[in-house]
């Protein structure tokens, strides 16, 4: 079994209205050092280990977990002792 952590973020050049709203709030709170805020999604999967594990994870990311028109994804794989 492996634990897969998927991070989905907006592609560069795609406006992130939630990110800008959070940044404005942080500035209002006097955290003036904040230069940018990017929101995204975190998805954790537990997956049975297969030979084509990475290929299948990437398929899941491209078909469902992210929308390739506006989003990028990265992932990490970690062995879990069950």
């Amino acid at each position, binding site marked *: 079994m492996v634990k897969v952590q998927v991070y989905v973020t907006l592609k560069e050049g795609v406006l992130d209205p939630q990110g800008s709203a959070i940044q404005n709030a942080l500035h209002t709170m006097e955290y003036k050092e904040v230069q940018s805020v990017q929101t995204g999604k975190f998805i954790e999967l537990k997956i049975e280990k297969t030979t084509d594990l990475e290929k299948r994870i990437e398929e899941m990311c491209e078909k469902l977990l992210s929308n390739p028109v*506006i989003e990028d994804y990265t992932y990490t794989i970690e062995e879990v002792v069950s």
Partner: protein
Amino acid sequence: MKFAVIVFPGSNCDDDMVYAVTEGLNAEAEKVWYTETSVADYDAILLPGGFSYGDYLRSGAIARFAPVMTSVMEEAEKGKPVLGVCNGFQILLEAGLLPGAMQRNQNLRFICRPTELVVENNQTGFTAGYKENETISVPIAHGEGNYFCDEKTLKKLRDNKQIVFTYKSNANGSVADIAGVINEKGNVLGMMPHPERAASDILGSADGLKLFQSILNHWRESHVLTS
């Protein structure tokens, strides 16, 4: 002519769609549950608004893989008219039947109000009943209607006249004021405003009814020889 109104868990404009077709056009409409596997018996397919699957992950992302969608995509491929309104539009984008993607409204608010649309292209099977550049009043009701596509796609949409409706005053931040786009073939239309909520004067506007009427007329014209 028989219309199918696809119902997903969380659809909430399906009755309004059926009403627009049956009361407004005096035509036949049936609701089709998302677990059905064929819509081949219908002449046009309507994907209604709502919050399919609670908008989980992304609006339309999960509905796009509902069992009925395989057949919807096949029929779209064959050239059958498919109209997606609001959440229906989001589903068509997620399914790749239309280019682009939706984002949260720029002001991060759910916007529900009548809007003025410009009919940019009346040379389609959905808009033949309108005049070119006609301004019509159709309500919007969405939190994620901020249409996005890259420059290359936008150019293609413009070159092929695929932008069918634009907002007179851009409420949600959409690229190029886009309110509705059609596929290259001209048989799949997606739009955020709700024509079914503007299907009768008692609703405040009957401007949306012409869209359904156009689908019916287009169908009659193409079937006049065979019937």
